[in-house]
């Protein structure tokens, strides 16, 4: 065993890299669920975003355009879910599961021919002055700009939900769609917009994996991050800052266990590989003792005629 090979600065920096895709997907899903819609298709939207972003980045040579394409790809796929659940009034659970399966298949189809290709790399974005602070600088302020984007997205979602009228209306729709309809709010339109936002966020989360974290394309490369994002939203009691915390915890333990594996610790690899899932869920379950925050209309079909 050789723990000296673990560098705390690198460990924390890669923690953030591991947490970002999860945070992006989960914060998008949080908005969707706050509007009262349960979209289980996060995994499918992530993997679709991953391949859309990858393909466009390779073809245009611009990772930023790729990232935008990933957001569009995720949103377009979520549009399918929106059509099914909001207009055709289909069951949300079944539609979400179908969306995941569809996204996995679609991404392997698009991904033919992209295996082994190297994507253009993302420019690193060192924040001047701050990045020179010892220890904190290299960990927090020398990341790529998507990390900052994800952070400000969390901040933005929290502020909008808490302080703005738009956020209040969104929460109202998720709380009681009938009452919101009676007051004249466009329940379906608000929900569709929330679903599209969630799709775009999941798509970007997927592209972060294929363009930055790995970076290459392999089938099924999101490897269950979408499902973790879904669980994270529930166990974080629909609170943005807890989602951030949970994402960091998951990313941190994931990185740590990889480091421990490399250091040759005497714990079976399987247990180490399992640990991020187990520990994240245990910690969040303990924190979410107050489970009273679920939006009351979550997953219920809204029919305006009644």
């Amino acid at each position, binding site marked *: 065993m050789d723990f000296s090979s673990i560098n705390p600065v690198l460990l924390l920096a890669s923690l953030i890299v591991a947490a970002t895709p999860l945070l992006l997907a989960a914060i998008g899903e949080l908005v969707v669920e706050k509007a009262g819609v349960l979209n289980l298709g996060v995994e499918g939207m992530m993997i679709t975003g991953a391949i859309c972003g990858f393909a466009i980045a390779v073809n245009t040579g611009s990772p930023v355009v790729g990232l935008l394409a990933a957001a569009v790809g995720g949103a377009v796929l979520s549009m399918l879910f929106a059509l099914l659940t909001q207009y055709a009034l289909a069951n949300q659970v079944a539609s979400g599961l179908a969306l995941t399966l569809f996204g996995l298949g679609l991404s392997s189809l698009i991904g033919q021919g992209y295996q082994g290709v190297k994507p253009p790399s993302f420019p690193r974005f060192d924040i001047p002055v701050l990045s020179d602070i010892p220890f904190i600088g290299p960990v927090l302020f020398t990341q790529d700009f998507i990390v900052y984007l994800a952070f400000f997205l969390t901040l933005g979602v929290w502020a909008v939900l808490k302080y703005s*009228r738009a956020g*209040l*209306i969104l*929460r*109202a729709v998720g*709380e*009681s769609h*009938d*009452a*919101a309809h*009676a*007051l*004249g*709010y466009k329940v379906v339109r608000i929900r569709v917009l929330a679903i599209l936002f969630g799709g775009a966020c999941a798509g970007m989360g997927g592209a972060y994996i294929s363009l930055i974290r790995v970076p290459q394309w392999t089938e099924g490369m999101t490897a269950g991050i979408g499902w973790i994002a879904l669980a994270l939203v529930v166990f974080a009691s629909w609170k943005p800052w807890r989602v951030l915390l949970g994402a960091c915890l998951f990313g941190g333990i994931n990185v740590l266990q990889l480091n421990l594996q490399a250091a040759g610790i005497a714990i079976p690899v399987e247990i180490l590989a399992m640990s991020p899932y187990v520990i994240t869920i245990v910690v969040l379950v303990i924190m979410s003792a107050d489970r*009273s*925050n679920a*939006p*009351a209309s979550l997953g219920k079909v809204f029919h305006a005629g009644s």
Partner: protein
Amino acid sequence: MTGTLLKLNGLTKAYPGVVANNNVSFEIGKGEVHALLGENGAGKSTLVKMIYGLVKPNSGSMVMNGEDYAPVKPSAARQAGVAMVFQHFSLFDALNVAENIALGMENPPKMRDLAARIKEVSETYGLPLDPFRTVGDLSAGERQRVEIIRCLLQDPKLLIMDEPTSVLTPQEVDILFETLRKLSAEGTAILYISHKLEEIRTLCDNATILRLGEVVGDCVPRETTARDMAEMMVGSKLHVPERTGGDIGPVLLELNDLSVASPAEFGTALKGISMEVRSGEILGIGGVAGNGQDELLGALSGELLTKAGTIVLEGDDVSQMGPVGRRKLGLLTAPEERLGHAAAPDMSLIENAVLTGSVREGLEKNGFLKWGKARNFAETIIEKFDVRTPGPGNAARSLSGGNLQKFVIGREVLQRPDVLVVNQPTWGVDAAAAADIRQSLLDLAAAGAAIICISQDLDELMEISDHFAALNEGRLSDIRPSKGLTVDEIGLMMGGAHGMEVAHV
């Protein structure tokens, strides 16, 4: 304060298969309190939804203050000065009072200013409210205050109130009326929807009566008897339930210091309830909704298990017994919520008959169902209780509220219960069907059963019950003979005015 505020000309709205409103015309004057009377399904709700911009009429027009008025959405109606207090509250449980009010306003001020305004207006009209309390924790009366203040903050010219008193104690009703009179004196017109005729007689200047979507008459309520108005609503003579008078016998059901927590998130726990019901007796339990009615029914039906010894049925302790065991012993229940609790909406009437009747009617043997016998049972209910349906194979959902209610009550009554517990037996049921249901309860009691009738309709309880008690925040008041109880006494048993005061302006 004279002149016409709103004039309706020949409003018509048809849905597939039913005309909800046909050529409805009337006028509301400035500062007038105008009653809209009619039975369930008479088209009152559709009419006010058209005025509030939620539903578009197929034909006809409205004129407000001399100008054409055709709101395409509620916000347009609100801008024109129309505000509405809904029958089923349009509130969000998880949000606080100020957030709820902001959602119903066009251009809400900043939260802090809004909170100050809420405090000011609520105190002026004697409806105190804390803007930062979560709505889910409020009582029914307080929730209605939230709705009313939401309307008042917009200085409405026309305030629509859809069945506002069904959730209030008599004292709270008095205070509400005081507030409404104040508003009317300030020039606000009020369109008041109700089927409580005595209330309309005390409050309203004019009344328009709807039946099957059409205006069938109007009257000045102060000069018309309640009976005449009721017959205009129904369109025929009313049958008043009568009791044949059975003897009060031995105690059948006994509750001893029953306490149980509520399974619902914003529910009310029952606290130390003791009572006994005798053979041949109807015990009426009043109280404002949300004071433990659902929990009491759950504890009696066996959905909620309670401490041993708290519920004793004819000498047997049934506190730890589930619904099937209790049914076997003769304790039957009919819950309030027709679709989803008392009946499974998408299952046929036969299947629904089996669901509660299988034990006592012998509709199953060795785990196999006897469909023939079940069909006969369902057909008997339909015939004896005059349930209007094409046949027992139809889904429960396809029946109208009143017909399904007759089926649900009939299903229990025909199983010859020793003790029957019903919650809101005539809620949302038209007058004729309600009279039938009450008659069947009276007949059952006369035949020797003990009946507990939980209801928010005080007139109903006074009509059928021998003894009366009220639930208030999960506690049961003293049980008193119904005969001779005054409205004031009942109101105090229900918890009085819950901290409301008369308007200060």
